[in-house]
């Protein structure tokens, strides 16, 4: 041990540290300053930034001893005298914090910038934040926040909330409001799972297969068990209950036992609980395991061939999904032109900033209590209970804040393992995945190959669309059947097509499992059809916008699954508004023609266009419901409770707003409690852009019903009709009298009425493919125009400007809406330009964040125009429907189309390979 003496946030500190300890560990573990987060642990992401003598450094790999005698400032040290630092205030007001996990790093990096450049330009800001990553893509808001903070510091300008065109409509709904948990996120007080610890807590670690396919022939844990400091080494033989987990099909073993098969490199073989992480890792090294290696299949098309190695006994086909409408042969016969092409998209990684973490303990009454940042707490509870052979009620799952999900925190990661180890040792156990482990293990986006064949009349009308999709669902089903189902139904785009035939094959391979990821299969489908639509427009000599407008779904259209759209189809307005904005920016010049860039003869600019649609909710016959509870507490506070997850998207805000709106209570008198299976009823999975609609409706109805009960109580007491009673700003207005809600609560209690309503909301019924009836109860629509700049010499592509219009029915939370669209756009840019999860023969190449690039502020266009289109859906809350996924979807095809417009080269494989593009440009020039 060495003595470290330094000044932290102005206080002298002296701690004993181990050789090699990093500053982040010392701050978090020895000083309890958990505001500093660790995300990649490899100097890539900037999340762990703290100031050492006023200079920003990455504390995850800054040897703590180097801070000896120096001043260290962390996020906790930024506020003074209880007042937020201007940066903190600005991050709250400008919506610059979403999931919040990167926020401390962003703010500390910005704080250092402002010390050096008190009045930074956008260039200065982009240069300073270049390596401080935000997967929510809050960069535009972060830039606004830094400028606002600078203006306050330099000129005393007050920091205002942003103003949007799409505000308003109701007292609370539609207004720009503060994210309730934002202050905690900017001060470092926000608690994520890894911030939770217990004095006698053990650290768990997992032995991974490391090979993509094989049978375990021998497993010996003796040496590991003997290592001092090791408290448990468990294998498949120690699973008391159900070995397999899985959200739809239980095919994924929590641990692979002797005689059983590993099906991808991330399969778990054994788990260890030890006093420290070091000991746990040493113990893993001492476990002896032997495999009989088996042949590997990694391509979904090859996986379907006869004689392909079998990933599962029953065959590699997880599901063949079909859609048939009209007469496809007749449709092609009617066509003047038939076009066909194939588009491929790679595996993509969620790269949420917070790696997976589970903390489990056995409570005094023998139950399991589990903290985990989860998108589906009740599914975790069921799956943990089943593995441990417990009743679901014997497990409590609670989520602290979650540092991003995007679909990647729906499946089981370390939940079952942590619970098993806690039960085996009787001590709390934490399993925190390193970034490396996170990249290896959790389900990804399906790599997809889509063949599109279109039949067209000369005038541009679609007569037929046929698609064939192969989706790589990897080693286990996860949500593969559902994801590829959505890919199927979205693969002919938001268009009126009389004759459709779709065949989709979700295939098992020895790659990491693929599951939910923002866009949920519909993203891949959108990419293929939108590239194809541009190709078709060119072939027919039509304007790509007009061509889409001609075929676009509208009210009373029939979809490819035979659904009659009776309302809330804002696609045409999205197209019109984006086109108008785009033409304004070009001053009426042809947007899709390549334009030269003044002074840069090697550069070309052009716009590209695409549209998208995305279902809201589970759909296709899956029962879709949420149960919420709203209670009035003493002191006039209302609490809304539901298990649905806040993963950065802003659900807490939305539910607070709805409760406030319905009860007539000020926002600060409404609390929202999420994600605790003991205290919150089941809101269902946070997936499919469903929470605003489903959980929003559950809370809305519960609050509404509670208001009616209050009114009934007052009506009886004051003898007035209940509908004459109004609730305003925490007061009930009864004739001329204003009754505080606290009094109403007291009155209800006196009468023996509990001021609490539980409401189970069922979304409109949907029907599976192949049956009559609607497949989804609502769809969101979007149109997107993207301007790119291409370097003809190097093939480099930069996104200059984007315009996106989204029909979300009704914007409930404008700040959240803006953040979702900006962030979704940036993720779409990432998918097109920077991201590719590379797997070679089942072995993962992109196993560090350094190899998987998420878009940084450097890739963020300075202009992201966000347009809201509001075609309300009658059953949605205030007319609202989903927004979380659709904003990402049309971005990659709009970029690919823009590149074609700039240079005449059509890219059919994502991500865009500048190397290939540059060489194609050379060939073309010759």
């Amino acid at each position: 041990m060495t003595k470290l003496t330094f000044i932290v946030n102005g206080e002298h500190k002296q701690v004993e540290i181990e050789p090699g300890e990093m500053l982040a560990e010392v701050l978090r573990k020895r000083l309890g300053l958990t505001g500093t987060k660790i995300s990649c642990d490899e100097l890539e992401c900037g999340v762990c930034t703290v100031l050492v003598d006023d200079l920003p450094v990455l504390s995850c790999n800054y040897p703590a001893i180097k801070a000896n005698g120096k001043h260290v400032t962390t996020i906790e040290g930024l506020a003074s005298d209880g007042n937020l630092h201007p940066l903190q205030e600005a991050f709250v007001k400008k919506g610059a914090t979403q999931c919040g996990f990167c926020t401390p790093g962003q703010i500390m990096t910005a704080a250092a910038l402002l010390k050096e450049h008190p009045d930074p330009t956008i260039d200065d800001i982009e240069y300073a934040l270049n390596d401080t990553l935000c997967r929510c893509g809050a960069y535009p808001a972060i830039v606004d926040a830094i400028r606002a903070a600078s203006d306050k510091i330099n000129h005393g300008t007050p920091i205002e909330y942003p103003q949007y065109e799409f505000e308003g409509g109701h007292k609370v709904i539609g207004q720009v409001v503060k994210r309730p948990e934002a202050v905690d996120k900017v001060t470092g007080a926000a608690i994520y799972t890894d911030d939770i610890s217990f004095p006698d807590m053990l650290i768990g670690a997992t032995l991974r297969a490391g090979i993509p396919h094989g049978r375990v022939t021998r497993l010996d844990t003796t040496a590991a068990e003997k290592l001092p400091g090791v408290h448990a080494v468990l294998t498949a033989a120690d699973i008391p209950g159900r070995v397999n987990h899985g959200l739809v099909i239980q095919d994924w073993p929590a641990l692979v036992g002797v005689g059983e098969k590993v099906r991808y490199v991330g399969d778990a073989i054994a788990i260890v609980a030890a006093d420290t992480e070091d000991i746990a890792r040493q113990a893993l090294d001492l476990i002896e395991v032997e495999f009989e290696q088996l042949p590997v299949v990694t391509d979904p098309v090859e996986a379907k061939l006869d004689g392909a190695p079998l990933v599962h006994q029953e065959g590699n086909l997880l599901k063949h999904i079909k859609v048939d409408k009209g007469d496809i042969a007749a449709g092609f016969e009617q066509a003047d032109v038939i076009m066909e092409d194939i588009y491929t998209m790679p595996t993509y990684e969620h790269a949420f900033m917070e790696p997976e973490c589970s903390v489990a303990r056995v409570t005094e009454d023998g139950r399991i209590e589990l903290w985990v940042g989860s998108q589906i707490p009740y599914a975790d509870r069921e799956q943990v209970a089943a593995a441990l052979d417990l009743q679901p009620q014997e497990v409590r799952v609670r989520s602290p804040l979650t540092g991003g999900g995007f679909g990647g925190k729906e499946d089981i990661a370390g939940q079952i393992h942590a619970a098993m180890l806690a039960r085996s040792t009787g001590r709390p156990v934490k399993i925190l995945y390193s970034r490396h482990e996170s990249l290896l293990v959790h389900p990804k986006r399906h790599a997809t190959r889509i063949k599109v064949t279109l039949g067209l009349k000369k005038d541009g009308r679609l007569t037929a669309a046929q698609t064939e999709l192969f989706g790589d669902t990897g080693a286990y089903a996860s949500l593969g059947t559902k994801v590829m189902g959505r890919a199927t139904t979205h693969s002919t785009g938001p268009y009126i097509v009389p004759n459709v035939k779709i065949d989709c094959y979700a295939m098992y391979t020895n790659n990491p499992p693929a599951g939910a990821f923002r866009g949920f299969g519909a993203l891949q489908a959108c990419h293929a059809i939108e590239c194809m639509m541009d190709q078709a427009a060119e072939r027919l000599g039509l304007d790509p916008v007009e061509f889409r407008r001609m075929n676009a779904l509208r009210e009373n259209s029939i979809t490819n699954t035979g659904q009659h759209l009776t309302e809330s189809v804002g696609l045409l307005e999205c197209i019109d508004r984006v086109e108008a904005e785009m033409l304004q920016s070009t001053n009426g010049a042809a947007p899709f023609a390549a334009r030269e860039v003044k002074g840069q003869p090697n550069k070309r600019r052009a716009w590209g266009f695409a549209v998208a649609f995305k279902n809201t909710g589970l759909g296709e016959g899956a029962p879709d419901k949420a149960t919420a509870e709203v209670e009035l507490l003493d002191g006039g506070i209302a609490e809304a409770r539901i298990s649905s997850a806040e993963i950065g998207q802003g659900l807490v805000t939305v539910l607070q707003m709805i409760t406030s709106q319905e009860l007539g209570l000020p926002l600060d008198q409404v609390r929202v409690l999420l994600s605790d299976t003991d205290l919150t009823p089941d809101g269902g999975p946070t997936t499919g852009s469903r929470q605003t609609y489903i959980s929003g409706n559950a809370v809305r109805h519960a609050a509404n019903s509670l208001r009616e009960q209050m009114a009934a109580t007052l009506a009886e007491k004051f003898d007035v009709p209940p509908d004459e009673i109004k609730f305003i700003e925490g007061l009930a207005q009864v004739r001329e009298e204003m009754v505080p809600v606290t009094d109403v609560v007291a009155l209800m209690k006196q009468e023996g009425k509990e001021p609490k309503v539980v409401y189970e909301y069922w979304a409109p019924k949907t029907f599976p493919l192949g049956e009559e009836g609607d497949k989804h109860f609502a769809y969101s629509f979007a149109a997107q125009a993207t301007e790119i700049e291409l370097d003809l010499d190097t093939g480099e592509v930069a996104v200059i400007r984007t315009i996106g219009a989204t029909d979300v029915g009704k914007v409930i939370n404008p700040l959240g809406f803006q953040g979702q669209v900006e962030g979704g756009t940036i993720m779409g840019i990432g998918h097109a330009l920077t991201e590719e999860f590379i797997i070679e023969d089942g072995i993962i190449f992109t196993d560090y964040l350094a190899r998987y690039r998420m878009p940084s502020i450097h890739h963020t266009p300075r202009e992201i125009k966000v347009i809201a289109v509001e075609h309300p859906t009658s059953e949605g809350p205030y007319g609202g429907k989903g927004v979380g996924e659709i904003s990402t979807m049309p971005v990659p095809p709009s970029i690919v189309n823009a590149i074609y417009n700039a240079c005449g080269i059509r890219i059919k494989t994502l991500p865009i390979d500048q190397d290939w593009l540059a060489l194609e440009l050379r060939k073309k020039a010759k």
Partner: protein
Amino acid sequence: MRQARGAFAVLAGGTDLLLDIQQGRHPVVDTLVDVSNIPELSTIEVYQDHIYLGAGVTHKQIISSQLLLENAQCVVEGCGLIGGPQVRNVATIGGNVSHALPAGDGTISLLALDTQVEIASIGGRRWEPLLEIFAGPGKVTFDRQQELVTRFRFNKRLEREGSTFHRVMRPQGVAIAILNMSGWVKLDDSEHLADVRIACGPAGPKPFRGFETESFLRGKCLDETILMEAARVLDAEVNLRTSKHRATKDYRHSLLPVLLKQVLLLAVSRAKENRE
């Protein structure tokens, strides 16, 4: 270093070394010898005709130095492209060079200035041309267990001299240049190249100087034809290859003339401005 127990490595900023150790690319060590607190290694000074740059100078110091901006613009530019501010605050120029990667941005920019490097040990110190200390990717000719890079020196910029640095990156994958290039030129009174230096990487197992291209260019006046011919000479003397998931050999070859033109034209225009 003499007192270090067991296997050791010299640690300055640690931004490469610590990750290499953790991710298994560097043998495990028992001791890290931190040299970042040695004041003599952290200075940037002028002495007579030379600029002396301490090996422990951070990238942040480099990009903030007016002295270097005036005398070694290519180094300021190269180092300014490395990492974000957090990395630049700790990563040192000595670390960048000692890591001996063929395309280290700091290294390549120093090569264009014909930099010499001081190697010190208990036995004394000596100056060597920077190019001479590289033995292969990650390998150096001096003894890392006995010797330490302590300083760099290069000539002060004179009238009608200019330099620059440029690189092309791939948006996917690791933050190592597909190809980088640094150039330094000296113009004579008739705007011909009195002298020129070109360095680029990765163009072989070691950081690369284009001596043949330099000979070709010396005495010439830049125009499109000369640039094209120079690119052909450079193309013949480099050793470009395909690195999986980063770049194809063909793409690298196609970038050579693009970078050469950008670098030379900018260096020349700077040299013209530097007429006192």
